[in-house]
């Protein structure tokens, strides 16, 4: 079966973002960018399903400007077969992304869509669920285990109280959580091979979707700074401070 893996280019997770002086947005100039960690887990899961013989073809797709081709190439180097860039310079709301992906699903007819549960920039946690709703596919979010079994997929989910397992009828949308797998590193020969794998560029404007923004970003500010604390020299001093100064224990 075919699997579609939508991925996103985001700030590297080790980098602490800065807010622009005019508070219009965050400042990403000269910032190290990478594939969103949850998307990387999604690619890895697809590759493992292919290695297990369950999946025959892995298509990765990203919505963004030319720079996201770098992350598509990374995914190809990790084992995806071909890539689609839906080209736009706009930063789109999750709903518009989901609508574009819906079109790709209609065209490619994958049995499984695997994507990250959230991107570490906008922290929305929306796209997978929206795509499932729009396509009528079943949905398994926050997955820590994915087992394809005939025309069903069993998804174990990380929920607030522990774990929950659902049986989904295929086709299904699965969003990844951190414990699903540990992504591999791309080998040098695979990075070279990825350069020759197909990468289609399709302008977002050609999808026939009204992509008007539904939200407007009024301002972005830095979070409130915490007041500087102190180092204590002993457990006795710590307990004393917590009792008499902070008054959080008695």
């Amino acid at each position: 079966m075919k699997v579609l893996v939508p991925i996103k280019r985001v700030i590297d997770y080790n980098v602490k973002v800065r807010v622009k002086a005019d508070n219009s947005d965050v400042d990403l100039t000269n910032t190290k960018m990478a594939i969103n960690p949850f998307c990387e887990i999604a690619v890895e899961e697809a590759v493992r399903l292919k290695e297990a013989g369950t999946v025959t073809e892995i298509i990765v797709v990203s919505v963004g400007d030319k720079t996201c081709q770098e992350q598509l190439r990374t995914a190809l180097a990790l084992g995806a077969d071909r890539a689609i860039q839906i080209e736009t310079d706009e930063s789109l709301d999750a709903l518009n992304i989901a609508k574009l992906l819906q079109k790709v699903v209609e065209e490619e007819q994958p049995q499984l869509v695997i994507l990250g549960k959230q991107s570490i920039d906008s922290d929305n946690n929306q796209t997978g669920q929206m795509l499932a709703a729009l396509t009528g596919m079943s949905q398994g979010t926050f997955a820590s285990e994915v087992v394809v079994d005939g025309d069903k997929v069993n998804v174990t989910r990380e929920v607030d109280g522990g774990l929950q397992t659902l049986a989904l009828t295929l086709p299904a949308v699965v969003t990844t959580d951190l414990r699903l797998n540990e992504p591999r590193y791309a080998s040098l020969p695979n990075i070279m091979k990825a350069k020759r794998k197909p990468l289609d560029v399709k302008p977002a404007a050609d999808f026939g979707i009204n992509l008007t923004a539904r939200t407007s970003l009024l301002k972005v500010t830095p979070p409130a700074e915490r007041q500087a604390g102190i180092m204590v020299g002993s457990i006795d001093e710590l307990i004393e401070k917590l009792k008499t100064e902070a008054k959080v224990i008695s």
Partner: protein
Amino acid sequence: MSILVYAEHDNTELKADTLKTVTAALKIGSDVHLLVAGANCQSVVEQAAKVTGVTKVLVADNAAYEHQLAENVSALVLELAADYDTIMATALTTGKNFVPRVAALLDVAQISDIIDVESADTFVRPIYAGNAIATVKSLDVKKVLTVRATAFDAADTDGSAEVVTLSNVTDAGISSHVKDELTVSARPDLGAASIVISGGRGMQNGENFKLLDGIADKLGAAIGASRAAVDAGFVPNDMQVGQTGKIVAPDLYIAVGISGAIQHLAGMKDSKVIVAINKDPEAPIFQVADYGLEADLFDALPELEAKL
């Protein structure tokens, strides 16, 4: 202006965080209704009817909603949506799971994880693991929101709302529940505890987490963990605090053997008082700590337990 708030519950108990989401709703408008979708969830309905400020409790009590599967719950909410300007849920697993479906099918953008309400269409939310705070205006007629509970106070519980039983039943039939493996613990919920003590990779193994037990017992604290501790299998996933785990803001947060990566800080830096115990004086956790103790945790924890 009517607002529908989805009640988060386990068919027995209304999650305390729902009371906070009601407070957020009351900042938007005054006609707030709670939806209880579940199976044999009468006790939840009784608790929901007492939430101050709620005028109506809608009840969909049916086997189709027992596990609150996203497909079924979103279909139910969609059927009710015409009567509401704003639809909200707490940003916990159930809400995060189904609310984007409601937004997509209503063809409106969702605003996730709000921490403040500026007006009926403008909301404040953290982005980039809380390293930036965005003010976002919704341009849609209907608003679909999830709420970060730690940012709001709990509503009181001396109300008496009207209870309305719904007959809607939707079973999409494309997903089914197989099993739950829930962590059983006598300790307070991470989200609800006023004191949290968390262990990180520095704890070295699951066995050593017992060093936190005695302290947690004495303080009535919940126990949390960093991602590294969960990934290494020391403790279960539901203990992870952070950007992509649980968000907590207790009166006291004690981080033990945790370095203070931005993803961890994102889940706890709004705690009132932060204590860090770490043997590395350069650990970034000390930059957000009110009280830092540079010490080996294997010495510090037994001493702390003994002296509390």
